Every structure is written in C-alpha cells, then in structure tokens.
C-alpha cells in the first residue's frame, strides 16, 4: 500500500495546496475529507496524515516545497 509521509515539514510554508489536492474528489473539494491536515504550531507546521488511505502522486506533486513523499508499506 502506498501511504503519504511528510519527511520535510521543516520546509512547509502552510499554503494548504496539499490539503486541497488530497481533498479533491472528482467534483468536490473538501478540507475535512482530506487525508492530510496541516497544523500551525507557532511559525512551524506539522502534518497529520491518515495512513489508512492510499495516497496519490498528485498530492506529493502539489507541494511547492517538496515536503511530502509516498512510501510503500
């Protein structure tokens, strides 16, 4: 199974493009149904990822700072 990981969150600028990409389901955009949550902690950001959901390459590509990666488990 391919899961999303966020090995480089120190680069994150909090643009939420990944959240939107992972919440894009055909004709519906949703932040609530996204498999990734980006949470601001002071000036930094942390990611909470639902690893029970298969991730798509498009979510990794959506990040302008290359924070994300897909890993096979």
């Amino acid at each position, binding site marked *: 199974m391919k899961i999303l990981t966020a090995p480089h969150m120190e680069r994150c600028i909090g*643009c939420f493009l990944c959240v939107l990409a992972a919440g894009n389901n055909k004709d519906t955009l949703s932040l609530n149904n996204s498999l990734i*949550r980006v949470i601001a902690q002071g000036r930094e950001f942390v990611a909470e990822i639902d690893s029970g959901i298969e991730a798509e390459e498009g979510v990794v590509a959506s990040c302008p700072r290359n924070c994300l990666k897909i890993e096979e488990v």
Partner: protein
Amino acid sequence: MVTFAPRVLDIDLEKRVASFDTYPDLTPLLGGLATGLELLRQHKENCLAVLSVGPLNGFFPFVSKFCALSIFPEGPREYYIGGRFALIMKFANIDSLIVRGVASEPLTLSVEPSGRVEFSPDLQEEEFLKIGVAGRRSFITFGNDESLVDNYFIFDQAIGRKLYMGNLRRFLISASSSLKVGKPDEYKDIYSEILKKGSELEVSYSDRSSCGLCPAGCSFSKETEERLELVYSHCLVACGFASRIYENIPRIFSCLNSIGFPYKHEDLESLPEKIRYLRTHF
C-alpha cells in the same frame, strides 16, 4: 443552472446574535470588493466592518486573500489581507461577514463546524487555541495596537482598532463545507495552468509563511494590501501580486465557468464602472 448568491453572516456584537442571509441580487457583483462595498452601503448604520471573499477563493492558486472594508469620515476604506482566513471562510460556506454594534464586554466569537456562532467572554490564549478544529481553522485577534490573522499576517489596524473598540477580541472560523466543481476536467486543467504561472507574480518565491492556496511564501505575505487600481483581483479576491494572472477577463470567465458559476461577460465588463459608483455613493 447553478446560481451564486452570496451567503452572508451578519453578526451583532451588542445583541450577541448572528444570522445567515443570502443576497441573490448581489450575484452580478462577483464578490470581494464589490459585494463588500454594496453590503457596507446597505448596512452602514452601525456597521464596524465587512469582510468578503470572492467566487474563486478556495478553488484556485493565488486567490488567497479577503477584502476588509469599513466606513471612515472620508469614506470607505478597503484592505486585502492574507493568511488562511479567506480559505477557511470559503470552506465554512461564508462569502461575507458583517460585524456591527458594540459588545458590553470583550468577546471571543467562534463559527463552529456546525455553522453555529458562539459568543464567549474573551478567552485566554491557551483556552482559545483549544477551540475549533486544528488544521481546519483560522482566526483573527484584535488589539488596540496590532491585529493579526493566524498570529502572523497583519490585519489592517484602522479596521482592527474599530473591531477592538467594538469589544471583539478574537474571531475564529472552522471549515465545515465542501465546494462543488461544475466541470471537474476543465477545472483541473485550468488549475494546473494557473499553478504554473508563478513567474508572472510580481514577487519571488520565498520561504515565509504563505497565504492559503499560494505556493509563493513571498516576503510580503504578511503585509496588508491597499492598491485601489485593481478591480478583478479585488473582487475574486486574488493576491494583488498575482494581478497579471487575474486581471484578465477571458481567464476569469474560464475559471468561473469551470466551477459552475454562470457569470456573463457583460457582468464582468461592467464591474469597473459598478465599483467606481459604489466607492463614491455612501
């Protein structure tokens, strides 16, 4: 056919009541600046501020700001503010906020995921950070000297002070809704095309905290914008630094069409004149 009527949350600080209304007659105004000016004109009696997003917030890159408006002795003033507030407002299904009245004591306001508006006595920072849904919320804090969005992005202090004097100290919104895309294939193509237009920005990519749906993280991201010459960017509400991308009627039309908002070319073309009128008729 989908119609787009702005959904407006009207908040009365004095009476501690809030209600949602839709304004179908404001649809041709597109959103942001034009909708905000008209709402301000209609509700000027005890209105402290109107905050508005536009039809492309939440859908497209670089459409990352909200418009804040208020009336001052010399007339209405408008500012464009970043952070994630515009994105979350859109995903809370709120197009505009009207804030009016003066509360009897300092308040924290929270729009919960259910859409319910909670009025609480002003919370301490620690308690405040526990409300809303982490990663799906955005907030503005109002102070006498400084007002901030998401504790970083500057909210214009002329309007921020007005809201502070109205005894509003903190205002939080949690995302609750989904956005429907009318033509998903077209939308996907246009989205990708716009995302590649970063070189058309008037700023360089950097590593600062960025506004919602802006990949630039530019060194101006935290600043409030106040450029009166833009029309479409201010109605959409896109970042002013992306004006080369969004001051373009055919592109705006394509964007609106792809998400299912059936605007007419005439509505878009008449917008500059409507804004000129609205700015001068208070």
